[in-house]
């Protein structure tokens, strides 16, 4: 088992806008949730906006600490969000990838990996990140996620704002090259499970009304 999640819960404090307000209000985002991730899993995490997909993925990636419950992690985790700002926009794609590669303990740089060519990054590697299209930025995000040679990849609605062709190319790359060829576990968060066309072997519905489905 790569990740074992046992009865975790997470609440967030809501900001107070009235100085006179003394009540502490909070919102419960995840309540008593459990799941397992195995090395051969392609999990589709489905939920509407605000259902807790991002919070759950960030808890799995150890970017947020759960209030209750426990998580056992037995592998490296990579998290890919929709945040395009999380790069150095004035640097080239190559310099960005070189910087993030130096943070990992790998002997071989991602820049020497064939996946760069498969993702088509070699065509715009000298361009500044700020000059890329949304589809190109997403490819660079995926390339960065490959740097840490993770065992589990958490994708958080990464195909949002992409056209159909780019969406298909990215999903095919993740399914064929990361899941099938590299044998990595995938957790794919989306509000639309149809976009991955039943490539998953587990479906977890975070919508509260369907929590037991």
């Amino acid at each position: 088992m790569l990740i074992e999640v046992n009865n975790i819960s997470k609440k967030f404090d809501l900001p107070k806008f009235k100085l006179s307000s003394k009540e502490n209000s909070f919102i419960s985002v995840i309540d008593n949730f459990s799941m397992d991730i195995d090395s051969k899993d392609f999990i589709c995490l489905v939920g509407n906006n605000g259902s807790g997909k991002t919070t759950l993925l960030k808890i799995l990636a150890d970017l947020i600490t759960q209030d209750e419950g426990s998580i056992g992690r037995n592998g490296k985790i990579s998290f890919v969000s929709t945040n395009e700002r999380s790069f150095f926009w004035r640097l080239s794609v190559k310099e960005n990838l070189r910087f993030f590669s130096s943070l990992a303990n790998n002997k071989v740089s991602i820049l020497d990996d064939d996946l760069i060519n498969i993702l088509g990054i070699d065509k715009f590697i000298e361009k500044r990140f700020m000059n890329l299209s949304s589809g190109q930025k997403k490819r660079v995000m995926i390339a960065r996620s490959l740097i840490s040679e993770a065992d589990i990849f958490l994708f958080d609605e990464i195909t949002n704002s992409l056209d159909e062709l780019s969406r298909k190319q990215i999903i095919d790359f993740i399914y064929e090259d990361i899941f099938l060829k590299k044998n990595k576990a995938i957790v794919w968060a989306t509000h639309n499970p149809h976009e991955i066309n039943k490539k998953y072997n587990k479906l977890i519905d975070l919508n509260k009304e369907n929590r037991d489905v």
Partner: protein
Amino acid sequence: MFRSLKIFYAFLRKDFLIAYSYRTNFFISVLTVFFLLFILSNLSKLTSNNEIFGDFKGNSFGYFVIGLAIIDLAMTISSRGAAQARELQLTGVFEELLLFRRSNAELMVSLFIYPTVFALFRFFLILIFGVIFFDLQINNLGNFALLMLVMSLSVISFVGIGLISAFFIIILKKGDFVNSINLILCIGFGNIIFPSEIVDTQLNQISYFLPITHSVELLRELLIGSISTESISTNLTYLIGLSFSFIGIGIISCLYAIKFAKIRGSLGEF
């Protein structure tokens, strides 16, 4: 150790390339050094024979230049490093960095590598411009090892203050006030523009707890004054104590801040 150096180099390279992409800003910041020295050289004509400068009576320009160089070093390191923490949090890069599972202490210190190199560049530029264009007399370069020790301890303490500012940035999302308070204290009590003894209250005791007080006194003695072993050993003892205290407090507080932000779920907030 090698791994840490590799990461420090990666941050240095990345920050240099970003700064280089704003070339005009870089060259203007170099030019401002020249104009600051020009103002100080004129100001020193008014104050040259004032008794308050003690041993440096007759050389208030040298007194001012060392003060300017060290305050520039201190504020550039602490404010630019802390500003980088804010920027990385704002853009979400900070979360990405944490995903690589490096030591958080190493990561936080890395934010201060380029600001330190840039600040040291400006520090020596102030002295070099001072000597070349404004007749600054530097007379004690023979104590190079001691000079390097004082510079290293000063940099460590300024990084520590910057880390405390970064702590507030991670927790409260704003930490500029730490640098503002530091600047006010340094100018008021740090012997930068005038000796703290002329502050006629018990408040001048604050100067003992400011690393910059001891840095600036040591540098003045080492570069433009006559060296007194007693004064150097006292100031050096204070500076060693304060440097290790500030860097220790800074690192521990940043580690706590990251843990706190993960619990609050506020790492990505700004």
